[in-house]
């Protein structure tokens, strides 16, 4: 768009338009998501009754076609490209993330579909339409390299998230949506002010351009630090790390479980990608982002883990756990090495699988008891031993113990930061390493709380519904990879190692 504005004569414009129409093919996954969104909207308007099957099939077909297109792009990937007049970047990292996002989105929809009659997302089209808007936003977030695109994609995700939190009836949902909205609006306003200063320093919005880098080098340290902290703060809000985490426990507790499983994974990983892209273009030595992000990572891990110890509600506990996981995700980023990037991506992909699995099991238990409070789950493990064992495995994976892939993920991340410390000799890396390892021990106490309530406490509460075969099948499908990949993680690491992180 910006280069379009530059062009003065007609032939130049014609070339530019020709380039744009070629770039459209790179955006095929986004177009597929938008088509699915429009179909959902039209279907919802045209039909009055029994919409569930139609809406569900459109949603799943939309995600499946997106996934197929992305697989095609992944296998035929040739070279990194800047597309749409340098607004977006088409590279392996974004294609890989979009692949796992479309999988995560489909798993989230499966949780919604398994949720039965009450509060079903598929009964009206609105929430699905907004959900696809969120998918479009996270897809664009993985590609954005322009400050305008960064702001717009974050806003698309944010506005969709506010609506999804509050769209179903309920006093708590409305309250959580209001809190989320106010925190989100303020943090995006602060980020925008930071962006406006970065634009003022450099005279360009394209973060990959030479003018941006040389412009930043000429600014004195204090204004530059303030502007960058403001900008990064808005991204950290979407990541849900300390100090911009306050919204997440309320939202996670109140929003429907299927939606929360998507909130806790997709926008977080997309925000991490944005953060990765922004800090990678910063000239070395200008701004000590390693210190700031290291402190954010340590604070997130400590705050998330210690607050989770006192929770009485499983979803609220997972909210604090996801704050802690945001810290662990940042560890790989702070290492700032090739191994750090790969381990960060590995951790992100595994975090997505683990978290969606955990929320699926919580949703199944929640349907039996009517709430996600620990007290209501007493003794359920004895009545449903198979599901209970699945819960134990997921919780062990989230803690990061063998024989689950959570262990591999933590191992890669912490070995990356240890190697980075030995090379760079930066003391913040050592602190991140030590405190991160100690936090893993703390995490054990609260992750095993749910299995403890399931198996070792006896409850008088009757089970509302017998556990069904599909629940067992879906639970197994989501949990089994955690065990298999513990032995086969080299396969995924090889895929990740083939990704070129260089700009």
């Amino acid at each position, binding site marked *: 768009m910006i280069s379009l504005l530059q062009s003065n004569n007609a032939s130049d414009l014609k070339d530019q338009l020709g380039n744009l129409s070629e770039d459209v093919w790179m955006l095929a996954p986004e177009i597929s998501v938008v088509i699915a969104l429009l179909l959902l909207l039209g279907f919802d308007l045209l039909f009055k009754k029994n919409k569930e099957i139609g809406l569900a099939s459109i949603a799943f077909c939309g995600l499946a076609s997106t996934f197929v297109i992305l697989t095609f792009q992944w296998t035929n990937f040739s070279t990194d490209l800047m597309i749409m007049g340098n607004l977006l970047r088409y590279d392996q990292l974004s294609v890989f993330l979009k692949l796992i996002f479309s999988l995560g989105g489909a798993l989230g929809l499966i949780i919604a579909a398994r949720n039965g009659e009450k509060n079903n997302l598929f009964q009206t089209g609105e929430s699905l339409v907004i959900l696809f808007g969120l998918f479009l936003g996270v897809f664009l977030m993985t590609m954005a390299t322009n400050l305008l695109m960064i702001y717009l994609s974050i806003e698309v995700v944010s506005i969709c998230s506010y609506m999804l939190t509050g769209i179903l009836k309920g006093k708590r949902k409305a309250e959580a949506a209001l809190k989320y909205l106010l925190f989100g609006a303020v943090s995006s306003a602060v980020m925008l002010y930071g962006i*406006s200063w970065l634009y003022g320093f450099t005279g360009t919005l394209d973060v990959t351009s030479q003018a941006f880098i040389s412009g930043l080098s000429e600014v004195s340290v204090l204004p530059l630090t303030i502007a960058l902290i403001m900008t990064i703060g808005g991204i950290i809000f979407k990541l849900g790390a300390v100090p911009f985490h306050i919204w997440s426990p309320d939202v996670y507790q109140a929003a429907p479980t299927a939606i929360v499983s998507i909130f806790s994974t997709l926008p977080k990983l997309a925000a991490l990608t944005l953060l990765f892209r922004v800090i990678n273009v910063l000239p070395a030595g200008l701004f000590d982002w390693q210190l700031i992000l290291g402190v954010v990572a340590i604070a997130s891990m400590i705050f998330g883990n210690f607050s989770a110890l006192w929770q009485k509600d499983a979803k609220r506990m997972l909210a604090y756990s996801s704050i802690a996981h945001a810290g662990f995700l940042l560890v790989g980023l702070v290492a700032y090495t090739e191994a750090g990037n790969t381990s960060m991506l590995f951790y992100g992909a595994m975090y997505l699988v683990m978290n969606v699995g955990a929320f699926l099991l919580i949703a199944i238990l929640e349907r039996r008891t009517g709430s996600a409070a620990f007290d209501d789950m007493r003794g359920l493990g004895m009545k449903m031993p198979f599901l209970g064992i699945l819960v134990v495995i997921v919780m062990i994976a989230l803690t990061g113990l063998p024989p689950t892939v959570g262990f591999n993920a933590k191992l890669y991340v912490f070995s990356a930061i240890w190697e980075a410390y030995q090379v760079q000799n930066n003391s913040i890396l050592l602190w991140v390493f030590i405190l991160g390892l100690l936090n893993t021990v703390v995490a054990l106490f609260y992750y095993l709380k749910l299995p403890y309530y399931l198996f070792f406490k006896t409850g008088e509460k009757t089970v509302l519904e017998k556990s069904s075969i599909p629940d067992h099948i879906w639970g197994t499908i989501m949990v089994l990879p955690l065990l298999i990949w513990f032995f086969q993680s080299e396969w995924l690491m090889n895929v990740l190692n083939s990704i070129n992180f260089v700009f």
Partner: protein
Amino acid sequence: MPVEHLVILGAILFCIGLFVVLTRKNAIAVLIGVELMLNASNINLVAFSHFDPDLLQGQVFALFVITVAAAEAAVALAIVVKVYQYFQTADLDKISELKG
């Protein structure tokens, strides 16, 4: 008019907006504060586009910000109406069922 004046105006507007957000208890008032902060950024963007070789990026950005702010305000007011139905108030101190 020199660019410095515009930038100072933007900074003052941003601080007023932030002050309103932090001190007011009413949800609508907080949203008005957010609106002020967004407009402060708009003034900055338009002022800085003076230095931009393309001259337009900041102004185009400001147009996008205005659109996003309108969308955000629409969603925000819808949510405030919904909260009012349940709580009979828009006072943020009294809207506190979720704790822990």
